[in-house]
């Protein structure tokens, strides 16, 4: 037998070509690495690296947590529209929303793991139930819903080219999961209705914090989450279709969804207006001051400009006006504003209740003010988590075709047929 030596090849140094795609991925990878480093440092050195304190124990990371869950709400609302209301034409949009939801919820889980003092005990809430605790309920719902989203996303992962060529049988089995979709939609709707509102109620049940202690936050949280979830789905679909040829969208469909978002925002603004006005009439110590903090104090710019003007009023006008809604750039701007407004709302809700605290001393309850500015480590880790989300979505667009309003229609007929169809556009 002849031994064949490998042929020696001269080493060629080839610089990677900087395409927009590789620059984007590389940029995200750099932020992700920085964030991961910050995360490891937090796990190693502890939460003393943050600017959180006993006065303000929840800060930037909780905002990212609440926001990533809120912007994932497109998954449950659009799946409910498709499978429970039977409006099948929205299915391609629901598919994108489901993928975004899966990313969003994993982002929330990463952030939570970083934020709790003992990440090694994350499983405790699964074992030691306290059904009186809103946080327990949210944890259970988020965990169960993450499982639902993973099942819902199985057919999406089944479309991965590598999987199809290497494990065709597994890919087939995975794409069969779409038969479960209606049942998963029911489970997803139930779980989401529970925890999207409970994330607000989490604050609303605390009697020690007069600004939060009202039932309205839960209503506002779920309505704003539905708007933001659908808005992010529309935005992500449109920007993907603009930037790559791996995505294509049905403009008509997105226009209809955008119209719905506009009306959801009107409902949100109505409840927010009513909630804020009613709040002043209680003259409760701490509550009035909290409202002042929002409308005239440290958080006032966030509130008036971020939440109300840019976050709600502007997108309502842009989305309910047929002319601006049908112009892609205006529509995309509106979507960004909606998402930004909801993030600002989450930030304000968390901080406005924490920055004011009532003294326990006898006599007239006195207010004190706390301060909080996130530390560099918090920003880095938060940036890392956000760039993980962006990276995961970008890879999904490119390799799983999560924004493809044509493939899905074929997929719905019969998953096996898809194998025979050459992927268009490649």
């Amino acid at each position, binding site marked *: 037998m002849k031994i064949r030596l490998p042929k020696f090849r001269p080493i060629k140094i080839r610089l990677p070509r900087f395409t927009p795609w590789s620059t984007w991925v590389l940029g995200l990878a750099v932020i992700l690495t920085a964030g991961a480093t910050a995360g490891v440092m937090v796990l190693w050195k502890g939460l*003393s690296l943050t600017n959180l304190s006993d006065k303000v124990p929840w800060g930037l990371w909780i905002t990212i947590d609440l926001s990533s869950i809120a912007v994932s709400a497109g998954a449950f609302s659009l799946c409910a529209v498709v499978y429970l209301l039977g409006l099948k034409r929205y299915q391609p949009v629901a598919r994108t929303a489901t993928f975004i939801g899966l990313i969003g919820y994993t982002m929330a889980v990463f952030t939570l793991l970083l934020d*709790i003092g003992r990440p090694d*005990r994350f499983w405790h809430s699964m074992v030691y139930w306290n059904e*009186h605790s809103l946080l327990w309920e949210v944890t259970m719902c988020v965990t169960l819903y993450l499982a639902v989203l993973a099942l819902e996303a199985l057919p999406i992962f089944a479309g991965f080219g590598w999987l199809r060529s290497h494990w065709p049988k597994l890919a087939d089995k995975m794409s069969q999961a779409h038969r479960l979709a209606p049942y998963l939609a029911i489970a997803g709707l139930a779980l989401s209705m529970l925890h999207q509102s409970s994330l607000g109620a989490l604050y609303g049940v605390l009697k020690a914090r007069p600004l939060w202690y009202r039932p309205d936050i839960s209503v506002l949280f779920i309505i704003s989450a539905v708007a933001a979830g659908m808005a992010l789905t529309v935005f992500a679909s449109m920007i993907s279709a603009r930037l790559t040829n791996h995505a294509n969208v049905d403009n008509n469909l997105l226009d209809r969804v955008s119209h719905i978002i506009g009306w959801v925002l009107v409902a949100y603004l109505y409840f927010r207006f009513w909630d804020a006005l009613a709040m002043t009439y209680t003259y409760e110590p701490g509550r009035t001051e909290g409202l002042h903090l929002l409308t005239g104090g440290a958080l006032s710019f966030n509130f008036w400009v971020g939440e109300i003007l840019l976050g709600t009023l502007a997108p309502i006008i842009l989305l309910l006006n047929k002319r601006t809604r049908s112009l892609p750039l205006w529509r995309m701007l509106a979507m960004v504003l909606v998402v930004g407004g909801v993030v600002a709302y989450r930030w304000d809700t968390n901080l406005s209740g924490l920055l004011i605290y009532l003294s326990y001393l*006898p006599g007239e309850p006195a207010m004190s003010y706390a301060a909080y500015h996130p530390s560099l480590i918090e920003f880095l880790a938060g940036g890392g988590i956000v760039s993980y989300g962006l990276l995961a979505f970008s890879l999904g667009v490119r390799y799983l075709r999560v924004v493809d309003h044509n493939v899905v229609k074929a997929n719905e007929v019969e998953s096996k047929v898809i194998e025979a169809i050459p992927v268009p556009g490649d």
Partner: protein
Amino acid sequence: MSNKINRRDFIKLTVAGVAVLAVPQIIRGVQALETLTPSGRQWAMVIDQSKCTGCGYCTLGCRAHNDIPPEISWNVVTKTGTVGTQDVYIARPCMQCTHAPCVDVCPVRASTYRPDGIVEMDYNRCIGCRYCEIACPYGARSFNWKQFTGPNPSVPEWGQPEVARRPRGVVEKCSFCYQRIDRGLALGLTPGIDEDATPACVVACPVGARQFGDLNDPESNVTKLLKGKTSYRLREDLGTAPHVYYLPANEEAQS
């Protein structure tokens, strides 16, 4: 039999499944409610503001006994004003509420009620989410932002702490020194009377401003104290029903 289930069946099954899962939990909840009704001993602390001089020995004794890091205080003494020429102070341990917000909000049942009214923390179970810290109206809870290492400056040369140091990443709070109570009772001592069975802060107070005892015992010193005098509790408007009572520095000032 067809193994296909339609939407209606699925909903029915889901509802039935949830009901089956919920029953044991509801039973447990009812049992938990029963333990809330006062039976047996109910430990309480009475702090007399007319006697307190603000010396801070209670805080020091507490720190030394429970091995508390310098950044944390289970017992905070604050000056609240003056009555005549005398400064008035208020000491704030954990209120050991009868309806404790911290117990309600804990996602893992790390904070629980003991039958004797003390709110107990399980440091091996706490996940460090800090929700209880946000929920507590009295600021009685502190988070271990870093690991406490090295000698404790509050511990004197003699003696040593009786409680294990808490790990990094959990919330901690005053426990009414229940380890002293439990050990004392086992030895046949009376908490509030015998120093070895009484919380460290009560023992450390040089002016006798703190009293400890069983509210359900008509002969205990706290029952007798509260019977004869005007007393108040902190933030009674919240309905938390603390087990810590205060005797005001000046009775007219309170009435």
